[in-house]
Structure formats: C-alpha cells, structure tokens
C-alpha cells in the first residue's frame, strides 16, 4: 500500500524530501552563524572592542579611600600638601593655624564616616563632593580634579568659587604649551610649579639662570624670581618638556591683584618673545 502510494505520488515525495533537506540545511547554517556571532561576543571579545566605563564611579571609590586616610588628624601633613592654597589664603591660614582650624571645625578627626558623594562636572574640572560625618558633625569636602588623577582638596562651601579659582592654569601660545600650578602661599611669598612643553619643530631657549626670565606682573609692579630656577640656560628641544619650580617674594595683597606670570625672552630661531600666563 505504501509502495503504491509512493509510486502514485513519486514527484511530490521527491519535492518534499528536497525541500525538507534544504530547510534543515538552512536552519543549521543560520543557527551556526548566530551561535558563532554570540559566542564571539561573550567569550572572546575582539581586540578592537572596548567596554564602556564610568570614570566617575571608579574614581568615587578611589577618592573615598584617599579621604579616609587624609582626613585623619595624624595624616595632616599629607593633607596639607593637597589642600587648595587659595582656600588657605582666603581663610588666612598658615600651616599650623590650618591644622587647628580644621580640628576645631571638625573637618578632620579620627571618626570619619563618608556618607555620600556627588560629582559636579564643568568642562575639564571634575569636583567630587563628599559628605561625611566626623564624630557627630556633618561636613563636606571637595576633591577638585583638574586633570585625570591630579587633584587638590578644598573645604569650600560654594562650588562656583572652586570653578573660578586659578590654582591651575594651562594654555598654549606660539607652539609652547604650559601648565602652571600654585604650590604654596605664605604671607610674603608664593611658589608655583611650571611645566613647559615645546611642540615646535625648532628648539626653544629659556634662561633659567636669570631671575628676570619669569616675573609676576601687576598693574603697578613687576616682580622677578626670588632665586634662579637652575644654573644653566635650558634648551627645550622638539616634543620635550621641562618641570621647574618658581618662587616669588610677594605680599598676599599684591598677589591677589596680580595679572599673571610672564615668561620673558624665550628664544626660538634667533627671535625673542614673551608669554603671559594670566592668573
């Protein structure tokens, strides 16, 4: 009976078998393709792939650990190195006064408990504002990150005043990029760190043995360095940079109204020019 059926419907059966084989084949190919695509994504990421990461979330954890260490009274010296010098200037705090001030106002102590953190972004500046408890007092502290992994600490209330501050200034002029960081302020002096990078194809020369190579400019004054930066004339070749410390004797009152720091007599290819870094 079956033989008879197959004989009668020979053409249809052959078609059915062919179609069946083709459909099974297609299903196998598609399933192999799909499994290949997904297994590649899950098990073996391609070399040109990357994972989206939230920098803020990673750094929140990192800075939380830093603050647990720095806000302890015993680690005050390390904290002082990191405190925003403009904050100290604004509150008339010398090193020893600052310690008493911070203890008295419960900013530092030995019972620190960090509660939360907000991140405020403004162009290149990231402010990690931590809220914490010290004994029974609720306080906050700002980690002001002006460059990845480079930061200073301030207990300033107003975020806007943190963004206006000029503890770090950077820029580029005539193919020379610079970054000026305020390191320390005393009642009669200021100290900066400066990084100068030469992006020109020609070398540049700055005379670090001359106190007049760097001056603080105000409306009615021009103050040279208190001491020379180095003993030699320094050539900065193409694509290289130098880091130097600049120390000026200047009163707080004069510093607060200064226009900026000028790098004088930069020589390139026999020509001389100045660069004013506005503060």
């Amino acid at each position, binding site marked *: 009976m079956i033989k008879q059926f197959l004989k009668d419907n020979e053409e249809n059966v052959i078609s059915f078998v062919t179609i069946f084989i083709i*459909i099974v084949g297609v299903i196998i190919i598609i399933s192999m393709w799909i499994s290949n695509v997904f297994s590649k994504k899950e098990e073996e990421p391609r070399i040109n*792939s990357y994972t989206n*990461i939230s920098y803020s979330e990673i750094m929140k954890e990192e800075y939380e650990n830093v603050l647990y260490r720095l806000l302890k009274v015993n680690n005050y010296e390390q904290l002082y190195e990191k405190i925003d010098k403009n904050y100290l200037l604004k509150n008339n705090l010398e090193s020893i006064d600052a310690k008493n001030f911070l203890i008295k106002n419960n900013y530092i102590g030995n019972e620190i408990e960090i509660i939360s953190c907000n991140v405020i972004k403004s162009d290149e500046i990231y402010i990690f504002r931590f809220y914490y408890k010290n004994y029974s007092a609720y306080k906050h502290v700002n980690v002001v990150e002006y460059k*990845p992994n480079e930061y200073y600490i301030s207990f300033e209330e107003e975020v806007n005043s943190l963004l206006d501050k000029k503890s770090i200034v950077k820029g580029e002029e005539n193919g020379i990029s610079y970054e000026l960081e305020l390191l320390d302020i005393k009642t009669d002096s200021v100290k900066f760190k400066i990084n100068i*990078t030469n992006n020109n*194809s020609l070398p540049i020369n700055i005379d670090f043995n001359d106190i007049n190579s760097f001056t603080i400019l105000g409306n009615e004054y021009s103050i040279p360095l208190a001491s020379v930066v180095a003993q030699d004339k320094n050539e900065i070749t193409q694509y*290289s940079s130098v880091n130097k410390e600049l120390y000026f004797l200047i009163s707080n009152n004069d510093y607060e109204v200064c226009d900026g720091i000028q790098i004088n007599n930069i020589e390139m290819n026999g020509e001389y020019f100045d660069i004013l870094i506005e503060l």
Partner: protein
Amino acid sequence: MNKIINFFEEMSIRDKIITLVVILILLIIVTTQYEKYKENVNNIYTSKLDYKSLTSESLLENYSENYSNRDVYYTINQIIENMNNEYDKKKNNYKMYYETVDYNYSKKISKKTFSNKLYSLFEKVNNSDGEYGIRMYCENIISNTFVVQVYVDDTIIGYIGIIFNTDNSTYSIFYVETL
C-alpha cells in the same frame, strides 16, 4: 517586471522555495559583509588625510589637549596599557593589532610596518627607567577622534591616533608614530 512575475508564477512550488531560500542565504551573507564594511569604511576623516606628508606636528594642528571626557580618557588609558602589556610577550603580538587599523590607514601601512612601529614605541617605554604616561588630544570638531601622546618623564616618545565607534563599542587606529 511582468515577465519576472510570470516567470515566478510558472515555477513549481519546489523551485519557488529553493529560490526564496537562496535569496535568504544571500541576504545573510550581504548583511554580514555590510556590517564589516561599515566598521571599516565609515571614516570620512581618515579618507581625507594625506598620509604621504602627514606628521604628528601637522596632525595635531587641529587638536587640543583636553580631558573633559574622562570616560574616553579612561578607555584610552586601558587600551594603551593593554598594548604595553603585550611588550613582554612576543614582537609578533603587535601584529594582531593590525585588526584595529582603520581601513584607509591600512591601505598605506603594511602589517609588518605597523607592528614594528608599535613594538618600537613600547620598547622605548619599557627600556626606560622613568614612568610613562599619556596625554589626550581631542580633534577640535570631530567628537570621536583622538590622538594619544605617549611620554616617559619629560620626553615624548610617540603618538597613536584612535577613532571610537560608539555604535558597536569598537575603536580603530588611524595613525602611529614613534619618535
């Protein structure tokens, strides 16, 4: 058009199904190839770069150092760190990074030259006593295109140009220079 319709109508059911299956397979192949094509040839920026006369100096004319996008900075840092970790292994390991080379750049640089450039850059990093770091330069108009400056202490040792494709979280390298 009518001829095609008539031709299709005159086909047996078996032939119709075979035709549909063949079309389906072709579609799958075309789609896969198109995805690969899109990954590589989507970059108008690199197609306009004159690689013959390109130097890091001329390239950086339209870039500025900027860290406002820290997520990108972190990702770039990870990419460079991964490349640096390959140095301890074999020189040939840098050949695998050729897969990341932008389509237009790959027409100008061979696998060997590219891997040699990367190797010599990280050779300088690893043979130096100083600490290495990176600076991030952003293209002034195009938001997904960056140049990474690699330096050791005060000396710049090279540049790597990177383009991100945020649609599928991949990146491609469009420039490498070892100084």
